[in-house]
């Protein structure tokens, strides 16, 4: 490795790089969360045969900025007998929890704020579990009985689904053997296959639990519009509400990146060890260039002149990023940066795919009733997660003791777990059918 490449590597390892990464995260995440909101509204509109925000900027690209300005200007009201200190503190807690848990996430092999701490995934899980403190205090501080009910419901939901998420993560960690994030991704690289294929049931449980944990899609009962108006957020307005809102979206990104690291092979490109697919490394630069071409193509069609200018700017920005991705290929010493850049691209691509699934579920599925929600959590998800941990454990045992190849053992145990799952659900159907009396609303089964 020639001296300049070495210098660059040393340059990347100095201590203040982590500081910069931290600042970047704190500054960029609200912006990203804003644009995630825009993407969600556009997707929702697209699925519902309408256009979504088109007015602010071309194709509504400036909508998040407009939202942010509106929220800043809006006068935030504090309910009179509410607990001032806690009313101010609650949204801050939920935002801080989401951002600090992002610290330990490795967005690429090099780009990680807390330099590869030993308890990687556990840190992320633990700190993001502080988020619901903000929710419960927020509900309590705005002392209207609607928000208290909403806060209690969402906390009960978060606590119960966190156990399920924890167990799902345990079964994935059994495969990787370590908590350190970079080691987990290495394990997936050596195994040559992502953990989602080795432990599919764990991945599914984690998907369901993470949706419930971020209060979204079929599980977004706490702020179910039709009953509790807006759950714990009813009394908040203006910037405070924006904090909660960004906290929720940042949480979604955190949960997405944990799932990507654990199940979708962090920053590995789709077929890491397959050499004849090496051209995949070119893909990031190509995709961004394509986006640039598309935005310039759209620039001509903008009704307002200033929007054409804006679209040109977006196009040129995409081209610049594409160049940044392409340059290291040609300049020899810069070759060492390639894995970092490509890794970050693939990681963000997978996280956005994960979040797309969140949004997709949100638009299609109706909402669970609260008791069904808890029913699904406690009666079906957690026992299934426990059974899954056992089955992955047995698989590992089979592999070490009896030398059964790893994926064959896991295949067997996954079939066993699925059988257990079907039995579990059927047992519940019988129990609910028999117990359902006409007068009292029965525990209708779900899932």
């Amino acid at each position, binding site marked *: 490795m020639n001296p300049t490449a070495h210098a660059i590597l040393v340059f990347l390892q100095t201590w203040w790089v982590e500081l910069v990464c931290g600042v970047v995260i704190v500054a960029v995440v609200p912006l990203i969360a804003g644009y995630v909101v825009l993407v969600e509204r556009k997707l929702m509109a697209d699925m519902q045969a309408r256009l979504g925000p088109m007015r602010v900027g071309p194709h509504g690209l400036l909508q998040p900025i407009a939202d942010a300005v509106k929220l800043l200007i809006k006068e935030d009201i504090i309910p009179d007998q509410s*607990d001032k*200190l*806690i009313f101010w*503190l609650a949204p801050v807690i939920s935002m801080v929890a989401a951002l600090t848990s992002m610290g330990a996430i490795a967005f690429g092999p090099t780009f990680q704020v807390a330099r590869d*701490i*030993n*308890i990687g995934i*556990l*840190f992320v*899980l*633990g*700190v993001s*579990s*502080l988020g*619901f*403190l903000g929710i*419960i*205090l927020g509900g*309590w501080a705005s002392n209207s009985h609607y928000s*208290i009910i909403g806060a*209690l419901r969402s*906390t009960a939901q978060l*606590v119960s689904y966190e156990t399920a998420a924890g167990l799902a993560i345990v079964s994935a960690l059994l495969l990787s053997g370590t*908590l350190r994030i970079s080691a987990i991704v290495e394990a997936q690289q050596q195994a040559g296959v992502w953990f989602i294929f080795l432990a599919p049931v764990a991945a599914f449980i984690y998907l369901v639990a993470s949706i419930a944990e971020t209060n979204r899609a079929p599980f977004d009962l706490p702020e179910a519009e039709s009953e509790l108006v807006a759950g714990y957020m009813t009394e908040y307005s203006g910037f405070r509400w924006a904090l909660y809102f960004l906290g929720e979206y940042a949480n979604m990104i955190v949960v997405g990146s944990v799932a990507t690291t654990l199940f979708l092979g962090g920053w590995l490109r789709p077929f890491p060890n397959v050499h004849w697919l090496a051209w995949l490394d070119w893909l990031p630069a190509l995709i961004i260039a394509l986006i640039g071409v598309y935005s310039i193509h759209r620039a001509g069609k903008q009704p307002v002149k200033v929007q054409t200018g804006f679209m040109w700017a977006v196009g040129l920005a995409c081209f610049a990023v594409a160049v940044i991705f392409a340059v290291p290929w040609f300049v020899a010493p810069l070759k060492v940066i390639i894995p970092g850049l490509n890794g970050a691209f693939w990681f963000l691509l997978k996280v956005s795919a994960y979040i797309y699934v969140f949004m997709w579920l949100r638009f299609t599925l109706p909402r669970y009733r609260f008791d069904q929600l808890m029913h699904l959590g406690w009666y079906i998800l957690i026992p299934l997660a426990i059974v899954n941990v056992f089955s992955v454990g047995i698989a590992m045992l089979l592999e070490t003791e009896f030398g059964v190849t790893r994926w064959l053992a896991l295949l067997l145990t996954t079939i066993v777990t699925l059988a257990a799952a079907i039995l579990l659900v059927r047992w519940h159907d019988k129990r609910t059918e028999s117990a359902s009396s006409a007068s009292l609303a029965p525990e209708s089964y779900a899932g």
Partner: protein
Amino acid sequence: MLDSVLFYFFGGVAVVGAALMVTSRNAIHSAVFLITTLLATAGIFLQLGAEFLFIAQVILYVGGIMVLFIFVIMLVRLDVALHHIRFRMKSLVVMTVFGVLAAEAGAIIYYARALPGQGLFIQNMAPADKLAPNSEKLAESLFNSYLLPFEIASVLLLVAMVGAVVMAKSKNRTEES
């Protein structure tokens, strides 16, 4: 240098939080201050190289136990029952108790200096980077040498859970549940 800055920060937050917790009027305020103190002590664990304990403290203490406290305070509307009772010369009693305890501790430290051996100032800590990866060693000792206490602890937790549920479930709603 960074080490001492962090220590004074965490230590300061812990002591101030504890003091506020003890003296604050509203139960929820004291709960929030206790949470800050717990997070500060977690920071000190991190500084002492005990990463696993740091995350255990954050998850178990703040994520688990404090949620119990907040739930109880919220559900049972305690602060409402509190406001109408005042205890007059509260601060005087607090001061005397604190004074007595501090004097006692000072006496111990003073006499400890005269004891044989290093007394209170024992040799310094092992430097940070030489330490083995914390959670692996902790896990290895937890499941090898301390397996029996580990099982007893889990039984203890089970018993506590059952006990809490039985007590908290009110008598009059048994037929409907």
